[in-house]
């Protein structure tokens, strides 16, 4: 991504304070400029106003591909919008603008990921080597808010807050990837997943995904609810080869596990997918490959706790003394990879894991390792 690119944003029907903040930010940051709705790359709407649905629909009809940012006091489930929660946070706005920028056709430049080329269809160790490097590079590429959102903890008995916390992977690229992966592994075929003006290919057996999109572009797509009209289909080896040939020369090959991990984190941003009931006891069947891809905050501790003993997501957060969104992000991504065991609670709450007699020393060692692994 080139931070020099300036996005033309139209702010529609936002209140005077937000407009003043946006004006100041656009001048200071140089990342976007405010403009008229007809000139805009993207539109920011106030989703809490009665007229906002009408505005959204009109904008969708007149500019079908135009990204819409919806500023609202709750997450939006409207198709094709990027939600921004009130009060507007600078980081969230910039993350949304990055997603928009990656989505704009004229800015869609491939990142520095592996140029695996068309021979990516045939597994090469050189390509695997490159892939390992690209997977590591992801580790530092995204901020914690990109992976976990910024929502505050909620009371698990507050039905409204709970509803706002859930999302349905079926409405997003995530759901399609999960289905296509399952099918390709079972049927030993490939898959073609349609995206707005692009596509993703799963190789035979579904262990790798081929795409021309960079990580940032994929993140932009992950956030956007997809049209039901865009689906996926199983393909054979010949169709896979033909489709890979049409994609161009800069194909990036992702391990499917890594791609689903990333897409799940980006999509959920700290929300809980519908497949995990808030009162389900969540255990870990196998640890995710945490050296590859983004490492959401406290992932190691959450993994250690859940592999030791199942907990509800809320109980896990309480036990570890960490924000709930960290647990939701982690278990959501594990669910997408089918790494969880889910059972229903009638049982008494899990007993606290024993404290190690050398807790003090081990904590110091852990702290040292954390500091050292940063560079």
């Amino acid at each position, binding site marked *: 991504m080139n931070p020099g690119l300036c996005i033309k944003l139209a702010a529609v029907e936002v209140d005077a304070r937000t407009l003043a903040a946006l004006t100041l930010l656009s001048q200071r940051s140089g990342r976007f400029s405010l403009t008229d709705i007809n000139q805009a790359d993207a539109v920011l709407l106030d989703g809490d106003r009665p007229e906002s649905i009408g505005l959204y629909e009109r904008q969708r009809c007149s500019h079908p591909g135009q990204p819409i940012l919806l500023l609202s006091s709750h997450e939006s489930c409207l198709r094709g919008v990027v939600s921004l929660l009130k009060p507007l946070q600078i980081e969230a706005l910039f993350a949304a603008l990055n997603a928009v920028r990656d989505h704009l056709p004229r800015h869609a430049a491939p990142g520095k990921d592996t140029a695996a080329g068309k021979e990516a269809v045939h597994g090469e160790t050189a390509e695997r080597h490159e892939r390992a490097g690209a997977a590591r590079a992801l580790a530092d590429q995204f901020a914690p808010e990109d992976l976990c959102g910024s929502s505050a903890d909620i009371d698990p008995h507050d039905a409204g807050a709970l509803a706002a916390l859930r999302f349905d992977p079926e409405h997003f690229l995530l759901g399609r990837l999960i289905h296509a992966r399952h099918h390709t592994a079972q049927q030993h075929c490939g898959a073609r997943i349609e995206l707005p003006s692009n596509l993703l290919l799963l190789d035979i057996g579904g262990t790798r995904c081929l795409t021309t999109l960079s990580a940032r572009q994929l993140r932009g797509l992950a956030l956007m609810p997809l049209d039901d009209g865009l689906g996926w289909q199983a393909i054979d080896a010949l169709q896979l080869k033909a489709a890979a040939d049409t994609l161009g020369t800069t194909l990036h090959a992702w391990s499917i596990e890594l791609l689903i991990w990333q897409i799940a984190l980006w999509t959920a941003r700290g929300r809980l997918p519908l497949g995990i009931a808030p009162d389900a006891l969540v255990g*870990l069947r196998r*640890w995710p490959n945490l050296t590859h891809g983004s490492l959401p905050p406290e992932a190691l501790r959450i993994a250690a706790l859940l*592999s030791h003993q199942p907990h509800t997501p809320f109980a896990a957060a309480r036990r570890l003394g960490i924000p709930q969104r960290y647990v939701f992000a982690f278990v959501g991504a594990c669910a997408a990879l089918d790494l969880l065991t889910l059972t229903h609670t009638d049982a008494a709450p899990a007993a606290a894991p024993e404290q*190690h007699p*050398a807790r003090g020393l081990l904590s*110091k060692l852990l702290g040292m*390792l954390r500091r050292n692994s940063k560079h």
Partner: protein
Amino acid sequence: MHHHKIVFTGPVGAGKTTAIRTLCGANALGTDAAASDMTRTRKETTTVALDYGTLHLNSGETIHVYGTPGQERFDFMWEILTQGGIGLVLLLDATRPAPLNDLRFFVNVFTAYVERTALAVGITRSDLAQSPLSLDDYAGALRSLDLVAPIFEVDARERRDISLLVQALLLQLDPGLAA
């Protein structure tokens, strides 16, 4: 005296010496010698006795890090290795002919130790393997030995990878550890 130890084990060439150097830097000491005929096809040197390194905490305490020689002759060092242990890091080379057999072999050698402490498994050299096993394959083999442990793909030369593996090892002993 009660030493705090982390033991690295695994087959010849899995990356034990490299990982301990990565983790302990200048505080690592190897006992590599030119490899015998058997191992020379894979690399130039092999560890004949022990790898040893230290990690020094600000509080003045020392963690001792040992690596077993890869040639499966470490019975004589058993005592040194398994007293005062924090846990076992098992490194498996994805390019070897049967990594799951390696996993079973080393877990069996260290069963009693792992039951008392903790285990973390690192799969090295996946980037060089023609058709590497999946992490589900490794997890399945562990499960059939009644174990659940972190299994990460690691590059023994990468500090972050080895550090995350050891962090996972520690947190299994007590997920409530605060850094």
